[in-house]
Protein backbone atom coordinates (compact mmCIF):
# COMPACT_ATOMS: atom_id res chain seq x y z
CA UNK A 1 0.00 0.00 0.00
CA UNK A 2 1.25 3.46 -0.86
CA UNK A 3 0.42 6.43 1.28
CA UNK A 4 0.70 10.01 0.16
CA UNK A 5 2.39 12.57 2.26
CA UNK A 6 2.03 16.27 1.65
CA UNK A 7 5.08 17.37 3.45
CA UNK A 8 8.13 19.43 2.59
CA UNK A 9 11.32 18.40 4.24
CA UNK A 10 13.66 21.30 4.80
CA UNK A 11 15.55 22.11 1.64
CA UNK A 12 12.87 20.35 -0.38
CA UNK A 13 10.54 23.27 -0.95
CA UNK A 14 9.67 23.22 -4.63
CA UNK A 15 9.89 26.12 -7.06
CA UNK A 16 6.17 26.87 -7.05
CA UNK A 17 4.95 29.18 -4.37
CA UNK A 18 1.88 27.11 -3.66
CA UNK A 19 1.83 25.56 -0.24
CA UNK A 20 0.89 22.14 -1.60
CA UNK A 21 3.40 20.22 -3.67
CA UNK A 22 2.33 19.59 -7.25
CA UNK A 23 3.68 16.07 -7.12
CA UNK A 24 3.03 14.63 -3.65
CA UNK A 25 5.85 12.68 -2.06
CA UNK A 26 4.90 9.03 -2.06
CA UNK A 27 6.28 6.74 0.53
CA UNK A 28 6.16 3.04 1.13
CA UNK A 29 4.37 2.21 4.36
CA UNK A 30 7.30 0.10 5.46
CA UNK A 31 9.54 3.14 5.55
CA UNK A 32 9.91 4.54 9.04
CA UNK A 33 8.97 8.17 9.82
CA UNK A 34 11.61 10.86 9.63
CA UNK A 35 12.71 12.71 12.77
CA UNK A 36 14.68 15.90 13.24
CA UNK A 37 17.42 15.75 15.86
CA UNK A 38 18.58 18.55 18.15
CA UNK A 39 21.63 18.14 20.35
CA UNK A 40 22.84 20.27 23.24
CA UNK A 41 26.60 20.28 23.59
CA UNK A 42 28.38 20.28 26.93
CA UNK A 43 29.18 23.98 26.61
CA UNK A 44 26.01 25.19 24.92
CA UNK A 45 22.73 26.17 26.53
CA UNK A 46 20.65 25.59 23.44
CA UNK A 47 19.79 22.52 21.44
CA UNK A 48 21.04 22.84 17.88
CA UNK A 49 19.66 21.07 14.86
CA UNK A 50 22.18 18.44 13.76
CA UNK A 51 20.31 16.38 11.18
CA UNK A 52 17.58 13.84 10.74
CA UNK A 53 17.06 10.10 10.94
CA UNK A 54 14.42 7.38 10.65
CA UNK A 55 12.77 5.69 13.62
CA UNK A 56 9.47 4.03 14.44
CA UNK A 57 8.74 6.11 17.54
CA UNK A 58 10.18 8.81 19.78
CA UNK A 59 12.00 6.44 22.07
CA UNK A 60 13.77 4.75 19.18
CA UNK A 61 14.48 8.15 17.62
CA UNK A 62 16.33 9.24 20.76
CA UNK A 63 18.34 6.02 20.85
CA UNK A 64 19.12 6.29 17.16
CA UNK A 65 20.15 9.92 17.66
CA UNK A 66 22.46 8.80 20.45
CA UNK A 67 24.02 6.22 18.15
CA UNK A 68 24.23 8.38 15.05
CA UNK A 69 24.93 11.87 16.38
CA UNK A 70 26.71 11.59 19.74
CA UNK A 71 29.41 9.02 18.97
CA UNK A 72 32.13 11.61 19.32
CA UNK A 73 30.91 13.22 22.52
CA UNK A 74 28.93 15.86 20.66
CA UNK A 75 26.29 16.26 23.30
CA UNK A 76 24.68 15.71 26.67
CA UNK A 77 21.02 16.19 25.76
CA UNK A 78 18.88 15.15 22.81
CA UNK A 79 15.59 16.44 21.47
CA UNK A 80 13.76 14.75 18.62
CA UNK A 81 10.66 15.88 16.79
CA UNK A 82 8.92 14.15 13.96
CA UNK A 83 9.72 16.05 10.78
CA UNK A 84 6.08 16.34 9.77
CA UNK A 85 5.50 18.46 12.87
CA UNK A 86 8.02 21.08 11.80
CA UNK A 87 6.75 23.89 9.62
CA UNK A 88 9.19 26.06 7.75
CA UNK A 89 8.98 29.51 6.23
CA UNK A 90 9.12 29.57 2.48
CA UNK A 91 12.42 30.94 1.13
CA UNK A 92 10.43 32.70 -1.61
CA UNK A 93 8.87 34.89 1.06
CA UNK A 94 12.24 36.11 2.28
CA UNK A 95 11.84 39.61 0.84
CA UNK A 96 8.50 40.13 2.53
CA UNK A 97 9.52 38.61 5.80
CA UNK A 98 13.01 39.91 6.43
CA UNK A 99 13.83 42.93 4.28
CA UNK A 100 11.51 45.38 6.09
CA UNK A 101 13.73 45.11 9.18
CA UNK A 102 16.77 46.35 7.29
CA UNK A 103 16.18 50.11 7.72
CA UNK A 104 14.91 50.01 11.29
CA UNK A 105 18.17 50.30 13.07
CA UNK A 106 16.45 52.08 15.97
CA UNK A 107 15.29 48.65 17.09
CA UNK A 108 18.81 47.95 18.25
CA UNK A 109 19.38 48.94 21.86
CA UNK A 110 22.44 51.07 21.06
CA UNK A 111 20.33 54.27 20.86
CA UNK A 112 19.15 54.25 24.44
CA UNK A 113 21.04 56.17 27.10
CA UNK A 114 21.84 53.93 29.98
CA UNK A 115 22.04 55.24 33.55
CA UNK A 116 25.54 55.56 34.98
CA UNK A 117 24.91 52.74 37.43
CA UNK A 118 24.36 50.19 34.69
CA UNK A 119 27.75 48.93 33.62
CA UNK A 120 29.01 46.32 31.23
CA UNK A 121 26.13 46.52 28.77
Amino acid sequence: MQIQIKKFYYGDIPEEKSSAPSTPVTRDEHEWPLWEVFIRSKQGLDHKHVGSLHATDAEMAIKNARDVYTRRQEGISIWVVESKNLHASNPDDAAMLYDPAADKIYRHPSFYNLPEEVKHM
Partner: protein
Amino acid sequence: MNAHLDYVLHLADTTLVLAQRNSEWCGHGPILEQDIAITNISLDLLGQARNYYQHAASLINTANPNAQADEDSLAYLRDEREFKNPLLVELEKGDWAKTTLRQFLFSVFQDLQLKRLLHSTDTQIAAIAEKSLKETAYHIAWSSEWVIRLGDGTPESHSRMVTALNEVWEFTGGLFVPAPYELQLAGTIAADVSQLEKPWTETVSNVLEEATLSLPGKTFMQQSGKTGIHTEAMGYILAEMQSLKRSLPTATW
Protein backbone atom coordinates in the same frame (compact mmCIF):
# COMPACT_ATOMS: atom_id res chain seq x y z
CA MET B 1 48.29 -17.66 38.58
CA ASN B 2 47.07 -19.89 35.74
CA ALA B 3 43.47 -19.66 36.91
CA HIS B 4 43.86 -15.88 37.08
CA LEU B 5 45.13 -15.69 33.51
CA ASP B 6 42.46 -18.12 32.30
CA TYR B 7 39.78 -15.99 33.88
CA VAL B 8 40.99 -12.76 32.27
CA LEU B 9 41.19 -14.55 28.92
CA HIS B 10 37.69 -15.90 29.47
CA LEU B 11 36.38 -12.35 29.92
CA ALA B 12 38.40 -11.17 26.92
CA ASP B 13 37.32 -13.99 24.58
CA THR B 14 33.67 -13.58 25.50
CA THR B 15 33.58 -9.90 24.55
CA LEU B 16 35.78 -10.33 21.48
CA VAL B 17 33.72 -13.15 19.97
CA LEU B 18 30.44 -11.31 20.45
CA ALA B 19 32.01 -8.13 19.02
CA GLN B 20 33.08 -10.13 15.99
CA ARG B 21 29.63 -11.66 15.56
CA ASN B 22 27.82 -8.32 15.81
CA SER B 23 30.31 -6.69 13.45
CA GLU B 24 29.00 -9.00 10.70
CA TRP B 25 26.04 -6.61 10.51
CA CYS B 26 28.29 -3.74 9.46
CA GLY B 27 26.87 -2.55 6.16
CA HIS B 28 24.01 -5.08 6.36
CA GLY B 29 21.80 -3.65 9.14
CA PRO B 30 18.06 -3.48 8.52
CA ILE B 31 18.22 0.31 8.39
CA LEU B 32 21.13 2.75 8.50
CA GLU B 33 20.46 3.92 12.07
CA GLN B 34 20.32 0.36 13.42
CA ASP B 35 23.37 -0.63 11.43
CA ILE B 36 25.22 2.06 13.35
CA ALA B 37 23.63 0.99 16.65
CA ILE B 38 24.73 -2.65 16.38
CA THR B 39 28.23 -1.74 15.23
CA ASN B 40 28.51 0.75 18.12
CA ILE B 41 27.70 -2.12 20.47
CA SER B 42 30.24 -4.23 18.65
CA LEU B 43 32.86 -1.52 19.19
CA ASP B 44 31.96 -1.24 22.89
CA LEU B 45 32.56 -4.97 23.28
CA LEU B 46 35.76 -4.82 21.27
CA GLY B 47 37.03 -2.03 23.53
CA GLN B 48 36.30 -4.18 26.57
CA ALA B 49 38.05 -7.13 24.95
CA ARG B 50 41.14 -5.02 24.29
CA ASN B 51 41.27 -3.94 27.94
CA TYR B 52 41.10 -7.57 29.10
CA TYR B 53 43.66 -8.79 26.55
CA GLN B 54 46.09 -6.04 27.49
CA HIS B 55 45.69 -7.04 31.11
CA ALA B 56 46.19 -10.72 30.24
CA ALA B 57 49.30 -9.86 28.25
CA SER B 58 50.79 -7.98 31.17
CA LEU B 59 50.09 -10.96 33.46
CA ILE B 60 51.88 -13.23 30.99
CA ASN B 61 54.80 -10.89 30.49
CA THR B 62 55.24 -10.27 34.21
CA ALA B 63 55.44 -14.01 34.88
CA ASN B 64 57.76 -14.58 31.95
CA PRO B 65 59.64 -11.50 30.68
CA ASN B 66 60.56 -13.30 27.45
CA ALA B 67 56.97 -14.08 26.51
CA GLN B 68 56.30 -10.88 24.52
CA ALA B 69 52.55 -11.42 24.59
CA ASP B 70 50.30 -8.60 23.46
CA GLU B 71 46.61 -8.08 22.76
CA ASP B 72 47.00 -9.04 19.10
CA SER B 73 48.88 -12.26 19.72
CA LEU B 74 46.23 -13.32 22.24
CA ALA B 75 43.32 -12.50 19.93
CA TYR B 76 44.77 -13.72 16.66
CA LEU B 77 47.26 -16.48 17.40
CA ARG B 78 45.35 -18.74 19.80
CA ASP B 79 43.43 -21.76 18.56
CA GLU B 80 39.83 -22.75 19.05
CA ARG B 81 40.43 -25.00 22.06
CA GLU B 82 42.18 -22.14 23.85
CA PHE B 83 39.19 -19.79 23.53
CA LYS B 84 37.15 -19.65 26.73
CA ASN B 85 33.99 -17.84 25.67
CA PRO B 86 30.59 -19.31 26.53
CA LEU B 87 28.76 -20.87 23.56
CA LEU B 88 26.01 -18.24 23.51
CA VAL B 89 28.25 -15.53 22.04
CA GLU B 90 29.67 -17.66 19.22
CA LEU B 91 26.31 -18.68 17.70
CA GLU B 92 25.70 -17.42 14.17
CA LYS B 93 24.15 -14.00 14.05
CA GLY B 94 20.99 -15.29 12.33
CA ASP B 95 18.31 -12.72 11.59
CA TRP B 96 17.71 -9.45 13.44
CA ALA B 97 15.50 -11.25 15.99
CA LYS B 98 18.24 -13.71 16.88
CA THR B 99 20.93 -11.05 17.06
CA THR B 100 18.94 -8.73 19.33
CA LEU B 101 17.66 -11.58 21.50
CA ARG B 102 21.15 -13.04 21.98
CA GLN B 103 22.48 -9.57 22.79
CA PHE B 104 19.71 -9.09 25.35
CA LEU B 105 20.26 -12.46 27.04
CA PHE B 106 24.00 -11.87 27.15
CA SER B 107 23.85 -8.24 28.29
CA VAL B 108 21.59 -9.01 31.23
CA PHE B 109 24.10 -11.68 32.30
CA GLN B 110 27.07 -9.40 31.69
CA ASP B 111 25.52 -6.61 33.72
CA LEU B 112 25.08 -8.91 36.73
CA GLN B 113 28.58 -10.29 36.33
CA LEU B 114 30.22 -6.86 36.01
CA LYS B 115 28.40 -5.53 39.08
CA ARG B 116 30.09 -8.28 41.09
CA LEU B 117 33.42 -7.69 39.37
CA LEU B 118 33.41 -4.12 40.73
CA HIS B 119 34.58 -5.85 43.95
CA SER B 120 37.17 -8.07 42.28
CA THR B 121 40.44 -8.23 44.18
CA ASP B 122 42.12 -7.68 40.80
CA THR B 123 41.81 -3.90 40.64
CA GLN B 124 42.37 -3.88 36.89
CA ILE B 125 39.33 -6.11 36.37
CA ALA B 126 37.33 -3.91 38.74
CA ALA B 127 38.30 -0.82 36.75
CA ILE B 128 37.34 -2.40 33.42
CA ALA B 129 34.04 -3.50 34.96
CA GLU B 130 33.27 0.03 36.08
CA LYS B 131 33.88 1.41 32.60
CA SER B 132 31.96 -1.39 30.89
CA LEU B 133 28.85 -1.19 33.06
CA LYS B 134 27.74 2.08 31.48
CA GLU B 135 27.99 0.49 28.06
CA THR B 136 26.15 -2.63 29.14
CA ALA B 137 23.27 -0.59 30.57
CA TYR B 138 22.72 0.83 27.11
CA HIS B 139 23.04 -2.57 25.46
CA ILE B 140 20.27 -3.90 27.70
CA ALA B 141 18.02 -0.92 27.01
CA TRP B 142 18.58 -1.18 23.27
CA SER B 143 18.25 -4.95 22.95
CA SER B 144 15.29 -5.36 25.31
CA GLU B 145 13.37 -2.78 23.30
CA TRP B 146 13.95 -4.85 20.19
CA VAL B 147 12.90 -8.07 21.89
CA ILE B 148 9.66 -6.40 22.98
CA ARG B 149 9.14 -4.64 19.66
CA LEU B 150 9.51 -7.81 17.61
CA GLY B 151 7.96 -10.23 20.11
CA ASP B 152 4.91 -8.02 20.49
CA GLY B 153 4.90 -6.92 16.87
CA THR B 154 3.49 -8.47 13.72
CA PRO B 155 2.75 -12.21 13.34
CA GLU B 156 5.97 -12.54 11.35
CA SER B 157 8.20 -10.68 13.83
CA HIS B 158 6.65 -12.64 16.69
CA SER B 159 7.30 -15.97 15.01
CA ARG B 160 10.89 -14.95 14.27
CA MET B 161 11.40 -14.15 17.96
CA VAL B 162 9.90 -17.50 18.96
CA THR B 163 12.25 -19.28 16.55
CA ALA B 164 15.22 -17.30 17.86
CA LEU B 165 14.33 -18.08 21.47
CA ASN B 166 14.10 -21.81 20.68
CA GLU B 167 17.45 -21.72 18.90
CA VAL B 168 19.33 -19.78 21.53
CA TRP B 169 17.85 -20.92 24.81
CA GLU B 170 19.83 -24.14 25.32
CA PHE B 171 23.04 -22.09 25.15
CA THR B 172 22.14 -19.80 28.06
CA GLY B 173 22.56 -22.37 30.82
CA GLY B 174 26.32 -22.55 30.29
CA LEU B 175 26.67 -18.93 31.45
CA PHE B 176 25.89 -19.96 35.01
CA VAL B 177 28.07 -23.07 35.25
CA PRO B 178 31.45 -21.98 36.58
CA ALA B 179 34.52 -23.27 34.77
CA PRO B 180 37.23 -24.74 37.06
CA TYR B 181 39.21 -21.48 36.95
CA GLU B 182 36.09 -19.53 37.97
CA LEU B 183 35.36 -21.88 40.86
CA GLN B 184 38.88 -21.44 42.14
CA LEU B 185 38.64 -17.64 42.08
CA ALA B 186 34.96 -17.11 42.90
CA GLY B 187 34.48 -14.38 45.47
CA THR B 188 38.02 -13.03 45.14
CA ILE B 189 39.11 -12.23 41.59
CA ALA B 190 36.11 -13.75 39.85
CA ALA B 191 32.35 -13.40 40.14
CA ASP B 192 30.37 -16.41 41.31
CA VAL B 193 28.22 -16.91 38.22
CA SER B 194 26.18 -19.70 39.81
CA GLN B 195 24.46 -17.00 41.88
CA LEU B 196 23.44 -15.00 38.82
CA GLU B 197 20.90 -17.36 37.33
CA LYS B 198 18.04 -16.32 39.60
CA PRO B 199 18.25 -12.54 39.06
CA TRP B 200 18.95 -13.16 35.35
CA THR B 201 15.85 -15.32 34.94
CA GLU B 202 13.79 -12.68 36.74
CA THR B 203 14.84 -9.84 34.42
CA VAL B 204 14.64 -11.99 31.31
CA SER B 205 11.19 -13.35 32.08
CA ASN B 206 9.86 -9.83 32.74
CA VAL B 207 10.98 -8.66 29.32
CA LEU B 208 9.83 -11.84 27.59
CA GLU B 209 6.45 -11.44 29.20
CA GLU B 210 6.17 -7.90 27.90
CA ALA B 211 7.21 -9.25 24.51
CA THR B 212 4.36 -11.80 24.68
CA LEU B 213 6.94 -14.61 24.60
CA SER B 214 6.96 -17.44 27.07
CA LEU B 215 10.03 -18.45 29.00
CA PRO B 216 11.11 -21.89 27.74
CA GLY B 217 10.77 -24.65 30.31
CA LYS B 218 13.56 -26.69 31.82
CA THR B 219 15.57 -28.27 29.04
CA PHE B 220 18.99 -29.72 28.33
CA MET B 221 21.63 -27.00 28.50
CA GLN B 222 24.88 -26.91 26.55
CA GLN B 223 27.72 -25.98 28.88
CA SER B 224 31.08 -26.46 27.30
CA GLY B 225 32.37 -23.17 25.81
CA LYS B 226 34.24 -21.83 28.80
CA THR B 227 36.45 -24.91 28.94
CA GLY B 228 37.41 -24.65 25.28
CA ILE B 229 34.94 -27.04 23.65
CA HIS B 230 32.97 -25.08 21.08
CA THR B 231 30.17 -25.44 18.55
CA GLU B 232 30.89 -25.84 14.85
CA ALA B 233 30.27 -22.10 14.45
CA MET B 234 33.46 -21.20 16.31
CA GLY B 235 35.97 -22.37 13.70
CA TYR B 236 34.39 -20.11 11.09
CA ILE B 237 34.63 -17.04 13.31
CA LEU B 238 38.28 -17.65 14.06
CA ALA B 239 39.07 -18.39 10.41
CA GLU B 240 37.59 -15.07 9.33
CA MET B 241 39.00 -13.11 12.25
CA GLN B 242 42.50 -14.58 12.33
CA SER B 243 43.37 -15.42 8.74
CA LEU B 244 44.82 -12.02 7.83
CA LYS B 245 47.06 -11.86 10.88
CA ARG B 246 48.21 -15.43 10.35
CA SER B 247 48.99 -15.17 6.66
CA LEU B 248 50.52 -11.68 6.93
CA PRO B 249 51.91 -11.54 10.48
CA THR B 250 53.66 -8.21 10.04
CA ALA B 251 50.79 -6.36 8.36
CA THR B 252 49.88 -3.04 9.95
CA TRP B 253 47.01 -0.59 9.51
